[in-house]
Structures are given as structure tokens and as C-alpha cells.
């Protein structure tokens, strides 16, 4: 192992990601090479500095606010179903009703009963969230997208 290999391997050993034989080789080199011995000492000192950085206690009531946010989110989701999906589903039923009614009428009154697929299907293409909703913003953020 030379000093370049040492530098590349040092982080992996400190992070506990190196194979045992790599760690042994690193130790042996550090014992015989002063500058690499210093390097590994410095890197572990940086690690200790990082681990020693202060952490803050979350503000009081954060859990309650999170849980309240979840309830609002659920209500919003249900609200969206009531506002959009239910009227849309109602419209589908009405249109289907008209079509079936027409076909029955056609059948009774001698017109050719052409079986057609309803064009009013495919609600699955609708987004789960409306475009400017809270849910959409979070969904975009979670995908790492934004409006830049």
C-alpha cells in the first residue's frame, strides 16, 4: 500500500465499510508512515467534531402539530373525493343511464342496437391531488421536483 491508496481507503476504514484485510493493511501503513499516521488522526478528529455537534430538542408540541397535520391531510383527501370524484362518478352514472335508456329505447323502437363502449370512463387518469393542493406540493417535494 502506498500513501495514495491509504488516502483513498482511510475513509472506508473509518466508516466501518472496509474488509478486515484492508483495515489491517491500513493500520500497518499508518504505523510505518508518519504523514499517513497524521492523516488518519486528523480524519478521525473531524469525525469526532461532527459527532459532537449540538443537537436541539424539537419544539414542544411538535408531535401534536404533526398529528394534527395528518388529520387535516386525511380530511383534505376525503374532501377531494367528495368534491370531485363523487360528482364525477354521479355524472358517469347519469350518462350511462342515458345511454342504456337510449339503447333500450332503440331496441324497443327498432333502431340498430349498436353496442358502444362508454366514452365517459377512465377516471384513473385524474391526479390523486388537485394541482395546487398541499398534498400535491408534498408529493412533488418528495419526488425531488419543484417549480423551478
Amino acid at each position, binding site marked *: 500500500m502506498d500513501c495514495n491508496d491509504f488516502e483513498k481507503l482511510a475513509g472506508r476504514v473509518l466508516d466501518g465499510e472496509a474488509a478486515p484485510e484492508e483495515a489491517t493493511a491500513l493500520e500497518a501503513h499508518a504505523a510505518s508512515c508518519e504523514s499517513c499516521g497524521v492523516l488518519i488522526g486528523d480524519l478521525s478528529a*473531524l469525525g469526532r467534531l461532527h459527532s459532537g455537534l449540538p443537537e436541539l430538542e*424539537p419544539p414542544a408540541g411538535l408531535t401534536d402539530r404533526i398529528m394534527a397535520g395528518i388529520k387535516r391531510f386525511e380530511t383534505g383527501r376525503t374532501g377531494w373525493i367528495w368534491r370531485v370524484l363523487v360528482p364525477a362518478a354521479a355524472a358517469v352514472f347519469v350518462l350511462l343511464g342515458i345511454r342504456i335508456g337510449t339503447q333500450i329505447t332503440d331496441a324497443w323502437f327498432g333502431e340498430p342496437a349498436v353496442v358502444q363502449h362508454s366514452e365517459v370512463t377512465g377516471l384513473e387518469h385524474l391526479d390523486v391531488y388537485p394541482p395546487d393542493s398541499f398534498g400535491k406540493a408534498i408529493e412533488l417535494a418528495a419526488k425531488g421536483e419543484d417549480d423551478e
Partner: protein
Amino acid sequence: MEDDILMQRAKGGDHDAFRQVVERYQREIYNYFIRSTGSIEDSEDMTQHCFVNLYNSLGRYRRSASLRTFIYRIATNLAISFSRKRKLPLSLDILVEGGCDPASESSSDRPEDLAYVRELQQAYVESLAKLPAEWSMILDLRIGKELSYKEIADAVGRSVSSVESILFRAREKLSAGMAPFLSR
């Protein structure tokens, strides 16, 4: 109770189970956001978003995955998109004013030692703030949160070798920034 059991119960609509998940992880996620955004106020909002998003992702959570990595994946996505818009340099002051004095936790009682620890931490935090946002997040996931390379790779959506290479470069830059304090 194990994470998996709590998540299964939460999936079934058990809010108390989900609350336990929040209580278990909110502190580390909150601090992860503070370090990656430099803002205490924004970190509180982001912690809320992170857990609402986790709740919304209950259906995508698989028993085999580590919940912690799963949460960090959501948190990292939020932090990265936030840092593209607004990232404040993390200052030791906000951490100290936030209620925790790092120097006072030092084992030494001598004021000059405490002052030195404070100076060292200040320099470290400044060097950390100069790193690209994703690099400091990856460094914090490794050293601060002790995630493995594989877990970090899953959390940030990169390969293990790319995580390793970022850690290498981040340490190189930090060493350069901290050169006056290091023995080399």
C-alpha cells in the same frame, strides 16, 4: 414495539401507532433538517411535511426496508429541493442559542479549553456550510446518523460508489477548511 409492527398498524389506520413512529424519529429528523437547511423555523415545517409525507407513503412501505432509511429518503428529498431555493449557512450560534451549549459539554472545566472547543466547532460548522448541500447531508447521514453506505445510497438515490466518492471529497474539503486546527 418494533418499527414494522407500528407501520403495519398505522397502515390499518391506527393513529396512535403512527404517533409512536413520529415520537421515535422526530428529534433526529428535526436536527437533520437544521443541519441541512441552517434554519430552525423551516426545520420545524419540514419535519411536519416529512411525517405527513411518510403517512401518505404508508402503502409504499415494505416490511423488508428499514423504516429509518425510508424516512431519511423522504427527508433528503425535501431537504434537497428546499436547499435549491434557500439554504442558510448553519451557525453554531443557532445551535447554542437553541438551548444546547456544546462547550459546556466538554469534559474540561478550564475556560480557555471551553473557548477553544467553541472556536473549533465554529470553524467546523463554517467549513461544513461551504460544502454543497448534498455533500453535507451525506456526511451527516454517515457520521452524525451512522447510516451505512448502502443505507445512504438508498436514502439519497445514488450508487454506493458515488456515496463513497462524495464522502472522500467532502472530507478532503473539510480538512482543507480546518487546516489551521489540524496537525498536518
